[in-house]
């Protein structure tokens, strides 16, 4: 069962809460592992409790008995199986327009989860937001806009010129004597 379920928009409050009121069980939690470490040490860590810290990416996928949330750190991404309510409580997921909430997940690591078709995953029993996500703006550089417009004009001119003067210039006869042309082959 998930330790913390977050309501949308409550990420900052949860962050503060997590900082001020540490849950006693967290003292026993292992330090966060990178996704790469989990992959490289899969046989050793199979069935053991691990911690994972990373950004929630994509979308939560709510299923009948729980939800999938994919978490990415700098080394890779991994699926985390958690309660549906916990997943619904994650305010922001990483995408083009946003950096997702950073989650710290603790749970049991499976090298090839029998319950989930052999996927490598973590079954979470604790999830907290350690940093809220944020929207990301993608400003358009003015110089690039000017370059794009100029190039568009050049392209329009070139295509118009080809349409006006080049349409009837399709190939008709082979160059004499060249290998592969009708005359030489």
């Amino acid at each position, binding site marked *: 069962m998930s330790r913390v379920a977050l309501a949308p928009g409550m990420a900052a409050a949860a962050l503060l809460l997590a900082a001020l009121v540490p849950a006693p069980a967290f003292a026993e939690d292992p330090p966060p592992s990178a996704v790469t470490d989990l992959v490289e040490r899969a046989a050793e860590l199979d069935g053991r409790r691990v911690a994972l810290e990373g950004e929630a990416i994509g979308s939560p996928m709510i299923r009948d008995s729980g939800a999938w949330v994919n978490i990415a750190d700098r080394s890779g991404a991994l699926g985390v199986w958690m309660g549906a309510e916990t997943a619904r409580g994650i305010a922001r997921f990483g995408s083009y327009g946003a950096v997702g909430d950073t989650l710290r997940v603790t749970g049991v690591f499976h090298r090839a989860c029998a319950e989930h078709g052999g996927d490598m995953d973590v079954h979470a029993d604790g999830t907290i937001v350690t940093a809220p996500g944020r929207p990301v703006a993608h400003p358009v550089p003015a110089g690039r806009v000017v370059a794009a417009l100029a190039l568009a004009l050049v392209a329009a001119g070139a295509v118009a010129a080809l349409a006006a003067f080049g349409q009837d210039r399709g190939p008709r006869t082979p160059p004499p004597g060249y*290998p592969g042309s009708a005359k030489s082959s």
Partner: protein
Amino acid sequence: MTARPRLDDYRIILAYSGRVAIGLGAVYAVPLAVAALEGEWAAFVDLSIGCSASLALGAALASLMPREARPGWLHGMVATAVSWLLEMFLAAIPYRLSGHYASWLDSLFDAMSGFTTTGLTLVQDLDHLSRALNTWRHVVTFVGGQGVVVLALSFLVGGSRGGYELYVGEAKDERLFPRVAHTAKAIWKISAVYLAVGVGALWVAGLSIGLPAKEAFYHGAWVYMAAWSTGGFAPMSQNVGYYHSAVYELVCVAFFLAGSLNFALHHALMTGNRRELARNAEVISFTVTFAGLFTLAAWALAGSGTYGGIATLLRKGFYHVISAHTTTGFMTVAARQFAREWTPLALCAMILAMMAGGSACSTAGGVKGMRVAMLWLAIRNEVRALLLPSHASFRRRIHASGDRDLGDGVVKGAALVALLYVATWVLATMAGVAAGYSPMDAAFEGASVTGNVGLSIGVTAPGMPAALKVVYLLVMWVGRLEFMAVLALGRFVLSAFGRRRP
């Protein structure tokens, strides 16, 4: 020595390459529409630069066509090889401008990987890519699967001579209709039918696994394009493993399996000739080699104990062996899991599957089921001839959308291409070993690159040596064009430095 090319020869080749570039410029309309729809204006500007560059350069080159000229075999072949290189540069422009690639080389690598339907990627922070650029990556793969020249043949080159040479240069030699332009259009019609069905099926599958409606649609369209093209790109860094769904994986299998079949077989089935499915040599060849290699991989994995239950073993084993054999490259495991969790014997089965590949005249790569069948039948015929009295004779034929003679010339051609594939794989493997990777890792990645597969054992990454990126890029190009067009380009370049014709 081959005669030195004249100015008109260069003009014909560049003019055809220009027409193909115009086709690419038109294709840019798809991601541009997505960018406008989603309000991704930074991506819109980047894509519009790529689009304008394609149209401007394409029109300039197309205008070079001599008035009194007609291309021959060599022009068609060389134009195809040049077109693929030109398309790579033009498609890479928005990649580089997006900031998701560390260098121009990485951008070019991904463009070539897309066009050749390989699916290996050097993109960084894929999970934050714009929808427009993700669309462009998958459209590039989709166009590459049908063939960039097929695209131009369908809409731009069709009426003129030289179309067949361009078509064959792109490693497609089936004629569904007498006119090659009609054949090219038929290929696009077949793909369009599957596009509608595939996107719909994956959209529903996406909804059923909990994706929001809009996400399910985009993911459905992207994954369909990668599946049908046996491309292997995916919108998220975990590839198909992102979805955590057997249903989604099965729908993917249906479409990448279909994409790996010969377009002539699709045409036969769509025109009511369902018996062809059971008689076709390529289908039989694929079924036999897949069954053998899957059994081998499953046996090896069962021995390793990686996958405890039979259900998980079959799901992981089946998915990856069929992904390898169809040269799709979709994965539901992390790349390093192959190295860490799969046994050497299972990896050998995967390497053989990647090298064998899908059908001829399909979106798949590899040696191809047709050649595997031809070589098997040739061996069988030779053994049979040895056992029969010397004066006995028998028919040497193969059935694939009609009976074909299996003469010495045909067998020699198939053996030559198979030999070239193996030689290229050895070269790619040696390059990997020289770059410091283990022989097994290098052999696995080498097979993936040579067969245009896209499965990775962890070698392909932005941090890999630049020289290895260049080798892999060239191997993808050579493998996709099945050597002929590239050899023709080599001959053309050499002849350019030869003696001038009297």
